[in-house]
Structures are given as C-alpha cells and as structure tokens.
C-alpha cells in the first residue's frame, strides 16, 4: 500500500494569495494512499525541507508530492532532500501550483480546486513511480578525430593538450586540408602555410596524438563513451617507419604526367609522390592506379633508388580496431568542379578557373611560385573577372544556400592580384557582398577603395571565347540591368562550397544525420551547434556548413571542449528516465513482436535488436533492445509500439493514464 506524503507550499504569498493551501492539504490528506499532507510557508527553505525529511522517516513514505513551484525550478532540490532522507529521488514529484495555477488565476474557489486536482494528479502518478538509479556508463578516454584539416588539427591539439589520447584519421596522404592549399588568408593577408604548418608539425610530434594518414574510418559501432572504431590504413607501399622522406624516389619515378591534386591539376606529379613539400607525414605514397609496376609488372625504379629499402610493393591495407569514448567529425568541404557551369565554360576554357586554383597560382609554393600567370599560355593576365556566387544561392543549380566564404576570398583574390600585377584590372560580379565578421567589411571596402577592385552588382549569363579572347557577358543591376561585356584574360569562379565527397556514406556509418546537401546536422541549430544527435559524436568545421577558418577553428575548439568535458569523468551519469522493452528475466519472454517500428522513429539510434533463444540456444524470435546509454527518453518509440511492449520510466502508459483519470475525476 502506497504511503504518499503531500507537501503544499505557500511560497510566501505567491501561492497562498490565490490558493487556500490549508484546504488543499486537508483535501489531499483524504486521498487514498496519502499518509500525510501538510502545508508550510516555504517548503524549499531549510525548515521546509526538514519537514519533508522528517515526514519521510516518521511515516515511512513510499512517495512524495511537493506541491509548489514549477519542477523546472526546484525538482532537483526536493529530489535531493528526499534522497537525503533515504527515499529514492525518483519517488518525488512536483505539482506545479504556482506558475501554472496561483500566478495565472484569480483568487477563487476554482483556483484552490485546480490546485487540489493538480496535487491529486501527481499523487496518482507518484504511486506508479519506480525507485531508479542514475545510469552510469564507463568512458573510454580516447577521442577519434576524423579529418585532418584545420578543424581536425585544432580539435586534436585541444583534446591532446588536455591530456587525453587522440587518434587523428586523415583520408589523404597528408594532413592540412584545404587550408594548406591557400595562399594568404583574409582579413589579415597572412600566409596560410605559415600559420598552419607549425600546427601540423605539432600534431605529428604530440605524444598524445596517433596520426593515421592515408586512412579511412570503415565502421563504427557502440555508443557514447564506448565506441568501437575500425580504421582502414590504405597501403602506401612505403614503410612510414623506416622512410626518412629523402625524396629520391619521387625524383626518379618515370611516370610523370599525373595531374597534381594538391595543385588543383595545374601541374603534374609522379606516381610516387609527396603531396606537397610541407606534408605531414613527409613520406611518399605510391599511386597504385598510375604506378608503372602495378600496371605492367615492371619498373620498381623507386625501390632500386631507395637507400634504405623502405618501398614494399607487397604492402597491404591494414585494419585497426580501437575503442574510443568520443568521435569528432571534421571532414570539411569541397568546391563544385567542372561540368556544373557549361555556360561559364568551366572545364572547357583553360583560363576559366576556380577559387582554389587561383589560390595555388597566388601561392608562393604553387606552380608559378606565386606569380599570377594564366594556365593556358603562362601570360600575366591584365584583366581578371571574378564571379562570386558561381552556383551558390542558385536554386536552379540545386544549391540555394550561401557558401559564405566566397565574398571574402574573392575580395582577397582581387587584392592579391593587384598587389602582384599593379596594372591589372580585377572585376567582380556579385549578388551581395556578405562580409559580416570582425574586420571583414573593412577588408572588402579596402579591396574596392584602395586596391581598385571594380565591383559590378549582377550576374554573369555566359562566358565565351572570341578570337582567343574570353568574353564575360553579364548585367549590371545597379544600372537597371544594363548588359555588360568584359574582355577578360582570365576568369575565376567562386564555385559553391559543398560537402566533402563521401560525407553521406560516413554519416551513415556513424549514424549521424545530414541535410539535403550532405552537410552533417547539428543537434540544435542554436544551442547545440557542435553536437550531433548521436551522443558522443561532435562536429568541427565546414563538415557542418560552409565555414571560414576562424569559424572552423572556433567550432573545433567547441567540439574539443565537449569531448574534454565528457572525458572529465570516469563514468557518465545519465537521467534514468529512459525507455525499455518489457521482457522478463531469463528465460526471457517479451510481447515485442519485432516489428522494429521503434528503430525507425528513434532519433538517437538507441534501439537495436536482441535475440531470444530457447534452452537449446535456438533463436525463437528477435525483439527490440533499447540501449539505456543512448536513449534520451523522448518516448516516441513508446507511442509507435503496436504491442505496447515499450514503456518509458517516469512517463509510462499507466502513469499517464492514471494522471488523466485523476485529473478529470470529480
């Protein structure tokens, strides 16, 4: 038999001014199962809490209803008081008679009656509460960071500097990402490599960081604090441990004409190559697709010239299994490439290039040593037309969003161009100049006012070649849409930033959600920007949405802070108000019929399958299993369960039905 204690708070005059608290307590004391009901001026005060504690002991209470303010205010207070008196914290409920009664109604008989009915509702609920213990999940204090661009580097260093082990997985042969390709960075025009490469070296040398370059995450299972991650280390055919990075092999390889990805195909590389001089690790890799030995079975020149026998053609992909407590996704972005703009001649005319190609042309380490020379004939272009929003904010192209970085980098390009080619004329076709950010608008103003970039507000309709001359045809909307034609020596398209290749596949591997453009979805657009819906998996940088360097770094540090917070405890403590599939202990029996509807509605991938076996070990049926470490307790699965085999602690079917009944009973 239930022995419930009801404690009605006056909250000074806040409740007592409109509710007859004495009457509520008196009526409550007559409810079946109520052992004691008292009212007091301030229940949350020390003497008030003492009254509750004494009553728990004196009446050996099995449940407590504190009828006072909102549980959002003081539920924690009273639950703590109850547990101090030996009553399980989850056997305490609050009836909200202040915010939802005394404060919103006039003093009247009905207001007192409503307060009483709210108490009655919670009394019926608490009778069905179960004593619960917070869920404890052990935390493995290793973080896996996927992606070694600036975001992944920042997140790795932050976590590693906090004393935790980090495994950084990079798909390419070197870390560095797009930032390593950039010439100079807005709004300060400092050299990208100069600020990034020391960080890359720090990653390589950090005692807490294990770097797996040329590797990919192949499978992930488990849950927060306890992920199992399978990493595939692709064969480099070069022993990373023994190779000194002398580079002899890369100069002797006879296969020379392979487009250089790092240089955005503006130059060529060999089949055994280091992606760029500052690569980390600075070890070559054999491009199996183009390698003469792998294609014809003959060559091995690199092996012959290697002074320390570090080249092994028989190397195979290696799979590494590891446990991790948290995962940071930092897979970055890419830009739209050819065939997207047939009207702009992108991919057709060699002098119509994209923003990243311009970065390489402007980079001191690039194919032209930083001189702006056009790809077709190496001439210095005297007129460059920059086209912002090439694909972005264009629903017809399937990309309605703003790529965010292009306004700024286009302004930067015009400046770099003017600084290198003083008599050059940069034109910019733009839709709007979006330069929100610290010192950003000043930067674009400087491009226009000091460096003389000629901004034309309007879109480009077509780019074509006439007698070897590129003609850019557009409109100037500030002149009423007057057509504009500019003879250009080179055209730079600020093509749309898109999610990196393979983002959707990786999201599916990790069970994180992604948007229509394959950017990973944050758990809350405002309040949880670096969390995903899957507990323990965080987002850093442009894999979530187009971001510039400062934003990527900020997001990465944010994600790192979340990981460090998670790792600050040996165990995760979670509210035990979670759902579970009803089943008996062994021999197990469950009404669950295995339709797995719950699996499809769970936003947290918390529901898996469990096999029920007979004594001989034969599988009788497969039922749903809810992982208490992952369940967040929304209860969506409870409602879709056709056989009512799932229930949610604290908000069970019986509890809600009892509440409905008690609330309406007259």
């Amino acid at each position, binding site marked *: 038999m239930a022995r419930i204690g009801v404690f009605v708070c006056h909250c000074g005059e806040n409740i007592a001014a409109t509710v007859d608290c004495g009457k509520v307590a008196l009526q409550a004391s007559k409810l079946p199962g109520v052992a004691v009901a008292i009212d007091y001026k301030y229940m949350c005060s020390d003497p008030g809490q003492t009254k509750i504690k004494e009553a728990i002991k004196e009446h050996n209470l099995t449940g407590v209803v504190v009828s006072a303010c*909102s*549980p*959002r205010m003081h539920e924690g207070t009273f639950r703590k008081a109850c547990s101090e008196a030996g009553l399980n914290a989850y056997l305490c409920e609050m009836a*909200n008679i*202040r*915010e*939802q*009664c005394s*404060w*919103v*109604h*006039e003093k*009247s008989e*009905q*207001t007192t009656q*409503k307060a009483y*009915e*709210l108490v009655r*509702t919670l009394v019926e609920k608490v009778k069905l509460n179960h004593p619960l213990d917070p869920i404890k999940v052990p935390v493995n204090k290793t973080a896996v960071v996927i992606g070694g661009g600036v975001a992944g580097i920042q997140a790795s260093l932050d976590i590693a500097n906090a004393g935790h082990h980090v495994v950084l997985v990079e798909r390419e042969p070197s870390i560095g990402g797009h930032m390593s390709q950039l010439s100079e960075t807005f709004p300060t025009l400092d050299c990208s490599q100069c600020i990034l490469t020391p960080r890359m070296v720090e990653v390589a040398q950090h005692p807490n960081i294990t770097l797996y370059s040329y590797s990919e995450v192949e499978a992930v299972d488990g849950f927060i604090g306890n992920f199992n991650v399978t990493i595939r280390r692709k064969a480099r055919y070069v022993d990373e441990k023994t190779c000194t990075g002398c580079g002899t092999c890369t100069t002797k390889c006879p296969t020379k004409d392979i487009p250089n990805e790092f240089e955005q195909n503006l130059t060529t590389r060999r089949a055994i190559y280091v992606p760029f001089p500052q690569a980390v690790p600075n070890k070559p890799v054999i491009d199996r697709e183009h390698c003469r030995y792998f294609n014809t079975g003959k060559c091995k020149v690199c092996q012959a010239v290697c002074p320390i026998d570090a080249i092994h053609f028989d190397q195979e992909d290696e799979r590494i299994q590891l446990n991790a407590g948290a995962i940071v996704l930092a897979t970055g972005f890419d830009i739209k490439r050819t065939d997207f703009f047939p009207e702009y001649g992108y991919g057709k005319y060699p002098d119509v290039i994209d923003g990243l190609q311009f970065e390489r042309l402007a980079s001191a380490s690039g194919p032209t040593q930083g001189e702006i020379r056009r790809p077709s004939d190496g001439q210095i272009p005297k007129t460059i037309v920059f086209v912002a929003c090439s694909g972005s904010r264009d629903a017809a192209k399937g990309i309605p969003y703003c790529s965010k970085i292009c306004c700024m980098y286009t302004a930067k390009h015009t400046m770099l161009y003017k600084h290198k080619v003083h008599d050059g004329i940069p034109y910019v076709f733009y839709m709007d100049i979006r330069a929100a950010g610290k010192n950003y608008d000043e930067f674009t103003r400087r491009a226009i006012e000091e460096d003389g970039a000629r901004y034309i507000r309007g879109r480009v309709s077509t780019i074509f070649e006439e007698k070897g001359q590129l003609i850019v045809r557009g409109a100037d909307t500030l002149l009423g849409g007057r057509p504009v034609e500019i003879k250009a020596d080179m055209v730079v398209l600020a093509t749309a930033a898109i999610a990196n290749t393979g983002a959707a596949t990786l999201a599916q591997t990790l069970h994180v*959600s992604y948007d229509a453009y394959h950017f990973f979805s944050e*758990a*809350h*657009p405002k309040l949880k920007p670096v969390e995903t*819906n899957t507990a323990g998996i965080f987002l850093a940088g442009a894999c979530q949405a187009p971001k510039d360097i400062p934003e990527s770094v900020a997001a990465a540090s944010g994600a790192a802070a979340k990981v460090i917070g998670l790792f600050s405890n040996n165990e995760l403590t979670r509210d035990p*108000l979670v759902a579970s599939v009803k089943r008996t202990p062994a021999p197990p029996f469950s009404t669950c019929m295995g339709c797995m509807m719950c699996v499809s*509605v769970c*936003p947290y991938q918390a529901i898996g399958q469990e096999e029920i076996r007979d004594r001989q070990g034969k599988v009788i049926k497969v039922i749903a299993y809810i992982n208490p470490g992952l369940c*967040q*307790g*929304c*209860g*969506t699965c*409870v*409602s*879709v369960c056709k056989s009512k085999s799932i229930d*949610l602690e604290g*908000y069970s*079917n019986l509890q*809600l*039905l009892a*509440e*409905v*009944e008690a*609330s*309406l*009973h*007259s």
Partner: protein
Amino acid sequence: MEPFEPKIIAFVCNWCTYAGADLAGTSRLKYASNVKIIRFPCTGRIDFMLLQKAFANGADGIIVSGCHPNDCHYTSGNYHARRRWTIYKSLLDFTGIDTSRIAFTWVSAAEGSKWADLVNTTVETIRQLGPYTDMQELIGQSTHEPQ
C-alpha cells in the same frame, strides 16, 4: 444557469510548451483555470489511447502542444506527433468525436502569451461546443449533470 465550465486536459512537452506555460506564470498573465497540464517529455510521446482515455473520463476538450517544427528538443518528436495527428484526426472523426475539441499546436518556451491565448480560446471553443458526453453515455458513467 451557471455558464458551462469545460474540463480540458493539456498534454504538453517538457521543453517548450511546459516552459511556455511557466513563462505565462512568471509573467503573471491571467487565463481561464479550466485547463490542467499533464507533462510528458515530448509530443512524440502522444498516444491515441491518451486522447480516448481523456474523453472517456469526462474531458470536454484536449490540448496537445509541443515545440515548433525544427525546434524539438529530441529533433523529430514533434514531426512524429504531427504525422500521427493527421491519422488521429481521421480516427476521431470516424469514432464520432468532433475534432475541433482538440487543439493541436506549438507553443515555444518564449511564448507565454501564446499559451494564455491558447487556453482562453480553447476554453471558449469548447464552451461553444458544450459538454462532451457521448463516450461516457456509451460506457454509462456520465460525470456531467444533465442540463
């Protein structure tokens, strides 16, 4: 004759509407006392059984309210609720319950005044519709006095 005071149950989510109703309180907005809130974590927890149970026990009207689309604390619970609502509506229609007795809506944690308005308009709507007794008559335990 005294005006008919409808009994209304509100199933509200913990994160948006419950907090919105709290805000109405802290803002001291006055509204009708006919609505009693039953808190659950998310509108995704709403179950047709609960609506039926409420009507069977003498509710004249029901409010179901959660976070606005895209704002769900659990990402998608309110979308599940919205989808279910389209089914519930036809089911209620089929069982002969006037669907205007249920207000299915969104009230955010910042919309205290929207909550107060919602309560007042729902009470007024239900008052116009009169007591709901069909289901109770069917099960023979009417709690409403004959009028």
